[in-house]
């Protein structure tokens, strides 16, 4: 088989993943696009491993590691997305601007009013010191 076919397919798949990461708004859809990019890299690794006839199967073993890493990444990423959804009530990545680097950027309307009831550990500690 010509090596160009898997190489071109994997590069096109990678670019589709790039488009998805840049254009999607829902965080879980962004994670799906990241999965597409990882799968494209896996296809590249397998094709080059079969081409080069590596004795210790580096490409295919890397692909196995990559699949396991993708599983770990999707687990932690989904935990983060679910935590953000519980805290902020949205999973749209362009509404999470709490760390945005803009001058005079007021927090948007989706910011829950957590400043009053939940001041965080430091605030709680200071309040306790004042009460005691």
């Amino acid at each position, binding site marked *: *088989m*010509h*090596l*160009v076919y898997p190489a*071109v*397919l994997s*590069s096109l*798949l990678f*670019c*589709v*993943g*790039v*488009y*998805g990461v840049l*254009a*999607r*708004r*829902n965080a*879980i*859809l962004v*994670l*799906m696009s990241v999965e*597409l990019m990882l*799968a494209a890299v*896996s*296809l590249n690794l*397998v*094709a080059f*491993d*079969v*081409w080069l006839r590596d*004795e*210790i*199967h580096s490409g*295919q*073993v890397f*692909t*196995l*590691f990559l*699949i*396991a*890493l993708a*599983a*770990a*990444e*999707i687990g*932690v990423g*989904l*935990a983060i*997305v*679910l*935590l953000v*959804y*519980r805290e902020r009530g949205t999973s*749209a990545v362009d509404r999470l601007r709490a760390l945005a680097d803009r001058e005079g950027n007021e927090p948007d309307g989706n910011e829950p009013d957590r400043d009053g009831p939940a*001041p965080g*550990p430091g605030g*709680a*500690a200071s309040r*306790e010191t004042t009460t005691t």
Partner: protein
Amino acid sequence: MTERELLSTSGQEIVFVLVGLVVLGAAVLCVTTRHLVHAALWLVVALGGLAVEYLLLTAEFVAWVQVLIYLGSVVVLLLFGLMLTRAPIGPSPDADSGNRPVALAVALASAACLVTLVVDAFRTTWIDLETPHGRSEALGDSLFRAWVLPFEALSVLLLAALIGAIALSRARRARAGVAANGGGR
């Protein structure tokens, strides 16, 4: 081997190109559809087609691992994530953000760059598929001889990711407990 031309197609190449078209179409639908659940199902089609491509490249063990882990667990995890964030069933109009033209331009530019580079670089290379190179026996042999230390490190990393996911999921309750205790940390 006799002399081969650029587009002298064998049966494997024809099947590879057809399945590759299916994979690409499913991937494009996955990143452009407005139904969130349909995106996950198109991802299933794309990754399953990739498993078929691995089989065509005689990497059978990787193909079955792909089916088991990607289709079996990762997509199910993504579907659970979609349900837990209350994804709407119908089409959601705000699935794409505002920088869609920029994303399209970046993707098309990088695709043009990569495809021309790859075609120019590997125009005269061929994969010998007569003797299979990804049998489970040989792959397991090298995995547990040459790669056993990274394998064990990867198991530790999976454990760390598991604990991290559990800790992240319990973070809110822990902080509520801290606030109730008056910052007893």
